[in-house]
């Protein structure tokens, strides 16, 4: 905690003399996917610089967005054909976030106008860019809303209302739990300072998620030298099968 306070103090000291500024930091900006990785909690904190000349205005709100690396997806719809439920049509999207969390100090629709939300692509429904959906279907919006629904249920897309704790309009912090099934890459973290339905200021940083240790080694081997990887998998299987039968024979005698 003292370290956090020290960093906060440095942030405050470093702020230029200019009104309405938000500066943030993360408790860690590197997440290692090791063999026993089971999710990670990240503390996001920061400070708000007030414009002292301006008379008392309405209070600030803070919105924090964490956006995982983008991936292409296919969304399939099932229908009944000959008595069997099967995939019948699909929509492709070239680039949607693999993880998306919006944490706010108050419900998003109460603190931001829809126009501002759309402009900054804050809500997940804007961030996935529904207009990029392509496919031979009647209504692509059914598919994009299904994407949101499925990913929200899987807790890959999160809406964390009243999750950001604001202290006297100066300090803010939020704890966000990153799930266990993270994809490698940069997780951009945006912090918005909001007042009267508008974004006053924003700050960007990133969390870097990468595989480490044996996970990294195996993943690289699988993609760089697939033949060696396949033979290694085989060797392990053969050794385990043979070893177990020998071990049990020894135990029985």
């Amino acid at each position: 905690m003292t370290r956090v306070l020290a960093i906060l103090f440095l942030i405050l000291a470093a702020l230029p003399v200019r009104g309405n500024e938000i500066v943030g930091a993360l408790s860690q900006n590197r997440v290692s996917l090791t063999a026993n990785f089971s999710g990670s909690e990240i503390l996001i904190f920061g400070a708000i610089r007030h414009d002292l000349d301006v008379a008392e205005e309405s209070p600030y709100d803070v919105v924090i967005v964490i956006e995982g690396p983008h991936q292409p997806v296919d969304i399939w719809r099932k229908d009944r054909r000959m008595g069997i439920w099967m995939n019948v049509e699909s929509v492709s999207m070239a680039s949607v976030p693999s993880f998306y969390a919006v944490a706010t100090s108050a419900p998003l629709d109460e603190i931001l106008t829809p126009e501002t939300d759309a402009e900054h692509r804050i809500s997940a429904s804007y961030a996935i860019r529904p207009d990029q959906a392509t496919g031979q279907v009647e209504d692509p919006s059914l598919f994009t809303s299904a994407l949101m629904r499925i990913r929200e249920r899987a807790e890959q897309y999160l809406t964390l209302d009243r999750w950001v704790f604001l202290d006297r309009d100066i300090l803010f912090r939020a704890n966000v739990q990153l799930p266990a099934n993270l994809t490698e890459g940069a997780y951009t973290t945006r912090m918005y300072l909001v007042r009267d339905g508008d974004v006053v200021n924003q700050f960007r940083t990133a969390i870097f998620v990468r595989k480490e240790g044996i996970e990294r080694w195996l993943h690289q081997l699988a993609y760089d030298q697939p033949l060696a990887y396949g033979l290694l998998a085989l060797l392990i299987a053969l050794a385990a099968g043979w070893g177990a039968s020998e071990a049990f024979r020894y135990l029985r005698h």
Partner: protein
Amino acid sequence: MQIYLPIAEISVNALTLLGIGGGVGLLSGMFGVGGGFLITPLLFFIGIPPAVAVATGVNQVVASSVSGVLAHMKRRTVDLRMGWVLLIGGLIGSVAGIALFRYLSEMGQIDLAVQLSYVIFLGVIGLLMLQEGLRAWYRTSRSNAPRRKLHTHIWVHKMPFKMKFRVSGLYISVIPPIMVGMLVGLLSAVMGVGGGFIMVPAMIYLLGMPTKVVIGTSLFQIIFVTAFTTVMHAVTSHSVDIMLALFLILGGVIGAQVGAQVGLKLKAEQLRILLALVVLAVCAKIGLDLLLRPDEFYSISIPGRD
């Protein structure tokens, strides 16, 4: 204890994996089957992407078949010549299966294809086994029933390219064994199974091989075909997860040894009926998923990953 799988890119409970491996290993030791037909659907149920489940399931079958074939080699109950012929067919089938797997993945129909193959094959084999087991049970309780004819001539024996298989005591065309091998290779690549559950009945009823060499010979073929399929999946789709395989194998080999001891204490007919019921239960579970109205009509797939 959670474990992060580097290829599947999800975190799962290590004990769940050990439990699946151990449970299926127990059954495979008791019944002398590879257990791929149970491992692969169970991996689907815990959320492993289908491509990874199939490729890793095949890898697990290699491990569970090795100890079995070693025991049969020592007892000289492997018809090596028949094994090689089946293997040639198996490798051709595996190559075709991997191509088919890729094609169906791109079409978005791989889940359906895998599920349908499971329902059809498990349903047919399960019913046949159940009928056979019940009949055998009935026969042992009335010991003076007529015995089955040792050797019958069917269409299989009229084909060209005949070859002598001394261990099996057969002089038949190589075409049927190659066809059987191809079908098994195809299934191994698409369904992530060894294919023993289809090869064993085919060897007995179609090729007319003596029962005592059937298990050893089929294991011989299965090891090579699954080994080949593992490497092929690793090279073409990077979908073998060694970390996942390690936990399944660990649970599997221990379960198999325990199961083999338990199996000795049960009667063969009861064992066969029990296995038939397990097979039919898996078949029913997968079949119902296809027939019942799903809760969610939409699904997401990430192109290039499954």
